């Protein structure tokens, strides 16, 4: 084992001997590693922002719902009480609770909204006001009045387009009609407490929020819900949570009464957009590091070329060709490893120090950017995931190894007797 130590010593001292060349190559690696961290954290931050906006308007990072709910949005496609209890138990368990930021259980049905001015089709979402305010973004988009509050009973929160179509103002009355639990048409009188503008036409013209308790009485569904939306702090936790929930809900899932859906499944276009964007970024990193890799090949190869005699001596002393190659590989690897760690740490630190509170891209994005029906916040907060650090270091070490292989083979294969000739 000790001779591994001496090979490392040799590698480091040789790098120091070629200080200028080493610093030059290391700087390229440091800048590369720094850039990688900067753009990865911003890329991840951007995607997290897209995902967050998307899931808040949609069904959450993870949705638990009746398997037929998504296609029909009918009252009969409710979650069985047992499934709901199981979900709540999972969400309360310490390991999961640490990742979950909000869960909102809701009853969503399709129906009609009518006033003296006319009638319009409506998507009626009955919610717990506090949970839904934390879950969605629509409560922040009030243009008149306020969002639902816990004591509200006959309250409705309507979109600005629907309000105009039905001639509704604050305190106006409207009647909601939908099929109830007995499959009878039932009506419910409510009052407008607030009007919102989300910026998404389909939502502004049809989505109505109302208290869950009121809807339960109106439709005869009690405390039942059709779907539960869960938000987590980091979307990276989603697949784990989906797995846990599926395991806990094994029985209702087997009986076709519940389904657990991650955001990628629920919003395939968004998942594809993230994947395409990631792919584009990876391509750029790939090209960047191939260029840096050639720099390493050059540095290490030059040092091999100038040291034929030294490698000849090493082999005469009893190093095998393989060990001689290993000396070179160590040299390339220590050069990359040290500069990779410095570059990544520096990149992460500088990104956090200067842009930790977010980078404002509003100048580049214009007024409002929507993305398949989702409004995107122009301020991007960089996101640092531990897995990204590990990935980046692995990636850079891989590049370093690949770049050192050719010079290492050259060193292993030198002709010892040739290299020892004195007049060379």
């Amino acid at each position, binding site marked *: 084992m000790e001779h591994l130590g001496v090979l490392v010593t040799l590698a480091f001292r040789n790098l120091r001997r070629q200080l200028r060349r080493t610093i030059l190559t290391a700087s390229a690696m440091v800048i590369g590693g720094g850039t990688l961290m900067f753009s990865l954290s911003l890329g991840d931050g951007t995607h997290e922002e897209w995902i967050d906006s998307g899931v808040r308007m949609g069904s959450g990072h993870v949705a638990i719902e009746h398997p037929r709910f998504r296609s029909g949005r009918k009252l009969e496609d409710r979650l069985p009480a047992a499934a709901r209890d199981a979900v709540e138990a999972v969400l309360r368990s310490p390991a999961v609770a640490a990742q979950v930021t909000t869960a909102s259980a809701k009853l969503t049905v399709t129906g009609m909204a009518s006033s003296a001015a006319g009638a319009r089709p409506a998507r009626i979402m009955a919610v717990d006001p506090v949970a839904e305010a934390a879950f969605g973004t629509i409560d922040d988009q009030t243009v008149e009045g306020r969002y639902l509050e816990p004591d509200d009973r006959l309250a409705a929160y309507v979109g600005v387009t629907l309000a105009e179509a039905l001639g509704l103002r604050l305190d106006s009355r409207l009647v909601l009609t939908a099929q109830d639990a007995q499959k009878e048409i039932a009506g419910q009188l409510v009052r407008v407490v607030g009007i919102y503008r989300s910026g998404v036409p389909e939502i502004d013209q049809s989505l109505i929020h109302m208290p869950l308790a009121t809807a339960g009485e109106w439709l005869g569904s009690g405390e039942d819900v059709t779907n539960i939306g869960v938000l987590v702090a980091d979307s990276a936790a989603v697949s784990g949570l989906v797995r846990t929930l599926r395991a806990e809900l094994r029985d209702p899932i087997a009986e076709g009464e519940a389904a657990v859906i991650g955001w990628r499944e629920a919003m395939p276009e968004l998942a594809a957009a993230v994947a395409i964007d990631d792919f584009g970024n990876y391509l750029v990193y790939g090209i960047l590091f191939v260029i840096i890799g050639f720099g390493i090949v050059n540095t290490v190869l030059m040092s091999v070329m100038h040291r034929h005699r030294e490698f000849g001596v090493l082999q005469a002393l*009893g190093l095998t060709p393989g060990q001689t190659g290993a000396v070179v590989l160590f040299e390339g690897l220590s050069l990359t490893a040290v500069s990779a760690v410095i570059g990544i740490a520096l990149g992460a630190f500088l990104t956090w120090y200067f842009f930790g509170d977010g980078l404002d891209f509003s100048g580049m994005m214009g007024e409002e950017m929507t993305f398949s029906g989702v409004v995107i916040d122009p301020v991007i907060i960089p996101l640092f995931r531990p897995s990204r650090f590990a990935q980046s270091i692995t990636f850079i070490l891989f590049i370093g190894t690949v770049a050192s292989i050719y010079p290492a083979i050259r060193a292993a294969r030198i002709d010892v007797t040739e290299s020892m000739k004195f007049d060379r």
Partner: protein
Amino acid sequence: MTDPTTSAVRTEHVWKTFHQEAEEIHAVRDVTIEIARGEFTALAGPSGSGKTTLLNVIGGLTRPSRGQVWVAGRNLTEMSNPELARLRLGQVGFVFQAYNLLPVLTAMENAEFPMLLQGIDPDERAARVGELFKRIGLDGMEGRRPRKLSGGQQQRVAVVRSVASKPALVLADEPTANLDSAASDALLDVMRELNEDLGITFVFATHDTRVMERCRRLVRMVDGAIESDKVRS
């Protein structure tokens, strides 16, 4: 003829042929020689007579085109490259004409390098190198890099390195060629001493009459073949 396994070196009908363009160069021609343990032998002969090539064949740095070579009783012609490397590590020390040392290691680190590869523990390494440095007049030079040593001092470090690992055989190719006469004499004196006191086998390739004078056995080569082989009384 003695048993090849008891001598330090034995070659049997060794040829080394290089092909250059259409030409065949026989650098070593049908050399059969036996060198007993503890000998102090010089290979002499004009430039191009094959001295270096023969040393390289004996040291396992290059393979003979024909014939057999034994070092410390082991047949080199049957070994793989890594096996040859291990044989060099354990049994053969080398001293070359110049630039023998690894420039990034100190004199001490250079001298103990083969022992480090052999896995000898630090105390033992320090003791062996310390003793040899004292004997050879390198006291106080342990921490110096090769660049800060004279040519003669560098060669002495190389000699310490070649013997400290207790090889069966030390091969020295023109070790004095870059030294002035005083440095050459000093270097040869210590090698002769090491040979007599420790029984280490030395084989030199040389043009230097000072080296030849000190050797008990003088082998003359011409055109790759052995012309004469004399043991001095």
